[in-house]
């Protein structure tokens, strides 16, 4: 065998994956961004409501806008792109991480639209910003959005890998938004029911999602075997 092989650093494909997610998932971003703008602007006029229920619901729009990563993965599998990437040495883990980060980039766009629209109408309505605003955003809205989008993309990628290549409503891509919305909906219901513990409920939900996500990511090699990343053609 001779001397050990020199380390070869493969290029990151993150930039191009984000760009492709924006192209392939542009409808998702447009719909998510449009909806969140209307929703947030409406809640902004409601004053304090924007910082309570409004901020809690924002992750739902992040989910609807953050489907690009999973879409790119599904497309690439069906078109045979993944086959080439694996042949060139790109690992399934890197492919997954790129898909997650691309989805997070889309989700960020949607969230920023929502925050901008809500804050604008909030201020126009004569309200003043307090420390409560960044607190809610940093402790709940953004982390919950990123966790649900990451989890949704991870499940979508694993599910796509383990099932036959297909698109449509009964495909992983068709079901993913429901999966992404479920945690936020659960937190909303629990927080409204036990309003005194709303903050604890939100943080506990984030912790649970983080644990599930990390556990799934640790099983990447088993849930994304390279022989399941081939096109069926």
């Amino acid at each position, binding site marked *: 065998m001779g001397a050990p092989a020199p380390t070869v650093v493969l290029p990151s494909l993150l930039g191009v994956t984000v760009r492709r997610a924006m192209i392939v998932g542009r409808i998702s971003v447009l719909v998510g961004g449009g909806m969140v703008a209307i929703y947030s602007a409406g809640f902004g006029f409601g004053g304090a409501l924007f910082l309570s229920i409004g901020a809690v619901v924002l992750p739902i729009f992040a989910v609807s806008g953050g489907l690009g990563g999973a879409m790119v993965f599904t497309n690439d599998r069906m078109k045979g*792109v993944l086959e080439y990437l694996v042949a060139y040495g790109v690992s399934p883990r890197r492919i997954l991480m790129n898909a997650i980060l691309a989805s997070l980039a889309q989700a960020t766009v949607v969230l920023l639209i929502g925050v901008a629209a809500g804050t604008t109408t909030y201020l126009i309505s004569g309200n003043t910003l307090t420390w409560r605003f960044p607190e809610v955003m940093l402790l709940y809205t953004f982390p919950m959005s990123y966790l649900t989008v990451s989890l949704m993309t991870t499940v979508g990628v694993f599910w796509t890998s383990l099932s036959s290549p297909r698109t449509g409503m009964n495909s992983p891509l068709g079901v993913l938004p429901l999966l992404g919305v479920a945690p936020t909906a659960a937190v909303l219901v629990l927080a409204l029911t036990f309003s005194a513990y709303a903050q604890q409920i939100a943080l506990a939900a984030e912790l649970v999602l983080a644990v599930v996500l990390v556990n799934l990511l640790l099983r990447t090699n088993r849930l994304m075997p390279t022989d399941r990343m081939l096109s069926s053609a």
Partner: protein
Amino acid sequence: MNGEPLGGTPVRDAGTAATLVCRSLDSGYHKTPVLHDISFTVDRPSIYVVLGPNGAGKTTLFRTIAGILRPTSGQVLIDGVPIDQQTSRDRLHYLSHVDGMPDGLTVRESLDFYARVERASSADVDRVLDQLQIREFSKTFISQLSAGQRKRVSIARIFLREREIYLLDEPTANLDPKVAREIRTIILELAKDRIVLYSSHNLFEAREIGRYVITLKGGALTLFDRMENVRSAHFVVGVRTLEPTSALAGWERSGDYYLHEFSGPEEVPALIRDLEARGVKIREVREMENPLEELFT
């Protein structure tokens, strides 16, 4: 079976002295075994045509050699280094029978995408756009190309960077004859100093470009030999004449051809001399059956 005792002096180029070894290879998908105990060694630049009926395991063999499928047992080695090492992967190009073109990108952007994966430069992209004559499509989205144009772009990718071993899975499928011929010319040029494993369902193409033939059946290697050693049990020659002749009355006919069966091609010159002596004006003499067909039965 082993591909080593092929005879002749190995043709080696200083820059392309790769040796590809498949050793006792078992491979397949998930829990479905496809390849069984495949062993061969390829160590000289040439075109090795991989043939076999549908389901024989050609694509699985290519995917396993390319390191996409992990063998359940056995090894793929390039100069002794396993294919799962990046240094081995970097010595090999794989062209799938699917195009593998990313959605949402133009031709130029798709090639830029692969150039990035391959650590090739923008100048390399420009070069292959001209080499494969696809510059006119460079701003066209992949989804707007015809199947043949997409294939051409897909093939362009393997010229972004030079490698020592090329695995080409049906590279001329779905191409019109003119483009297929151009692609074959490029591949023939490539094979002067590179190892090319080439699968095809077109037996005439296989015979035209292949110097060696590898056949698979039921996931097992059934033949690895020089193309000229592959002979039919029946060697049928067709003779087409310039004008009707009674000298060939009684010969079986197929279209314009008068058919005659021999035990081997070495008898053909004598036939031609005999026919000319009998005043037959010969327009064409050709072998009517492709001996590779028998490898499929």
